[in-house]
């Protein structure tokens, strides 16, 4: 499935991720304006040198809002991936180590979970909890957990068969020590790449929820919320929709590219 990408693409991807990291950590470095600075003489301006992404209906600079939105968008993406992997590790290791009835039960539960498209599972969580940042993180995390859980289980089962596990057990190490020192690191390492890919996915999904008006609400400059806020002006001000979307797509592509490279580096077949 994976193709070796040219190093130029990898470098661009790295550059995008570094820029986004700077935007998320110290947005003031990239822009002199504030995300909520209103200028009623400069509303709905098309992109220009002064405003590379144009301005919104309150005269706020869109590029500045996108830069300040990075923290929330990436934070939600990372948080959701964290939630997903926490659930996946618990379920995957329980199934892979316990085997028998536990394994069968967890596998069946996952099969049922697969019948729910992730977005709908997320919407179910939001309808129960009401929209908020924490709910979006939980919703996207829960929505994407089943896929990862199945990978973790497969990984645990594969590593369990390895010679070095048998050797460690034969040397008289306790079961716990074998799991902690040998099984866990070896089973989890290939999943780091999958988690990286997952962050890109989560950012896209979370902004999709905000786009539907069910995630982060518009005064915030989370990227999906920016798209949602721009929709009323779609017939006149295309930049409000297209440009934040380009940023989301670029970030998703960059993170995916890095994830693929990690996959090659770390080796191991994560399905």
């Amino acid at each position, binding site marked *: *499935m994976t*193709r070796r990408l040219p190093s130029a693409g990898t470098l661009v991807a790295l550059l995008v991720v570094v820029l986004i990291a700077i935007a998320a950590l110290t947005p003031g470095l990239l822009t002199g304006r504030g995300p909520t600075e209103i200028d009623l003489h400069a509303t709905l301006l098309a992109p220009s040198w002064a405003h590379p992404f144009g301005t919104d209906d309150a005269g706020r600079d869109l590029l500045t809002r996108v830069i300040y939105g990075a923290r929330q968008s990436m934070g939600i993406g990372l948080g959701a991936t964290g939630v997903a992997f926490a659930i996946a590790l618990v379920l995957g290791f329980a199934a892979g180590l316990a085997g028998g009835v536990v394994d069968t039960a967890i596998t*069946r*539960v996952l*099969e*049922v979970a*697969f*019948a*729910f*498209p*992730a*977005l*709908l*599972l997320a*919407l*179910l*969580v*939001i*309808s*129960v*909890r*009401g*929209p908020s940042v924490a709910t979006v993180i939980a919703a996207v995390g829960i929505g994407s957990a089943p896929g990862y859980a199945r990978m973790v289980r497969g990984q645990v089962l594969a590593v369990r068969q390895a010679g070095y596990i048998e050797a460690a057990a034969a040397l008289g190490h306790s079961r716990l020590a074998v799991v902690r020192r040998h099984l866990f690191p070896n089973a989890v390492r290939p999943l780091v790449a999958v988690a990286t890919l997952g962050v*890109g996915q989560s950012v*896209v999904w979370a*902004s*999709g929820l905000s*786009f*539907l*008006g*069910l995630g982060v609400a518009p005064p915030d400059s989370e990227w999906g919320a920016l*798209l949602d806020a721009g929709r009323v002006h*779609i*017939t006149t001000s*295309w930049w409000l*929709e*297209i440009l934040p*979307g380009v940023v*989301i*797509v670029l970030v*998703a*592509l960059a993170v*995916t590219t890095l994830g693929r490279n990690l996959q090659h580096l770390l080796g191991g077949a994560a399905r």
Partner: protein
Amino acid sequence: MKVLLKLVSAVAVIVAAASVTFFAQLAVPGDRATVLMNLQTGQDRKWTDAELAPLNAQFGFKDPIIVQYLHYVGGLFRGDLGTSYTQKRPVTEVIGGQLLPSLTLTVSALAVAWVLAIAGTLLTARRGRILSGLGAAWEALTASLPHYWVGVVLLVVFAVQLRMFPIIGGTSAWGSVLPVLTLAIPLAGFLGQVTRDEFEQVMAQPFVTTARTRGMSDFGVRLRHVLRHAVLPAITLSGWALGALVAGAVIAENIFGRPGIGQVLVTAVNTRDVPTVSGIVLVVAAIYVVANLLVDLAYAIVDPRLGASR
């Protein structure tokens, strides 16, 4: 026998899915009758038991959990998905009329995605470095585009700027073009990637050389022999894709103001009408299960080796 077993397990998955949505309804914070009363009156206060009694009686909130559970799951087999909190109508009635436009949208999108993916593979796979490189790059790019952004770009370019299509299309054929493409373009990229990988592997198989030495034309070999093998993984993924497409349909319907379960769903999530959300989620899960049954059948038709073993 195999088919019967698959049917039983499909029903089991749907019942289990219903259990999930049932417990989701229990998980709503606070007393459900109070939440409901506040929803319906637009107020936010405590209510006396007497005021809540009619709601408790109507929805059976005070019944033992197990009774509520059996009633809910049993309702599935009677075609009853509970009652909407906000519309006070049966959920099946709320969803019913909206299901067909959404299904039309997803099935058309799946068909268009297949046509795009196969055309892309036939025209560019193994056609020299530049052409196949371009094909692969296009697929990698489109596969990673989020539905909402594709939809918005199509809307801005073709409806707003070029005025080729209506901005709010309804369910007319012409108005459906952009929503269908919104769903089909990313999926075509994804299916194309999978099909291309397989296609390139199969092109190196000895039976391809055999077919060529028989004097078969290049296009004939690709179409009659290679493609037949290359579509197998994509068929498997189509069952999964249909589920993902329904999720995408929610977004496409929202962007293009197209009637369908997407509109109902977004409103229901917004008003925290959990029974309606649950009902839609269950219907989609059922569609997914049925689609995967169909995939198994399609597989047996395309690959006779599997048919014999069943």
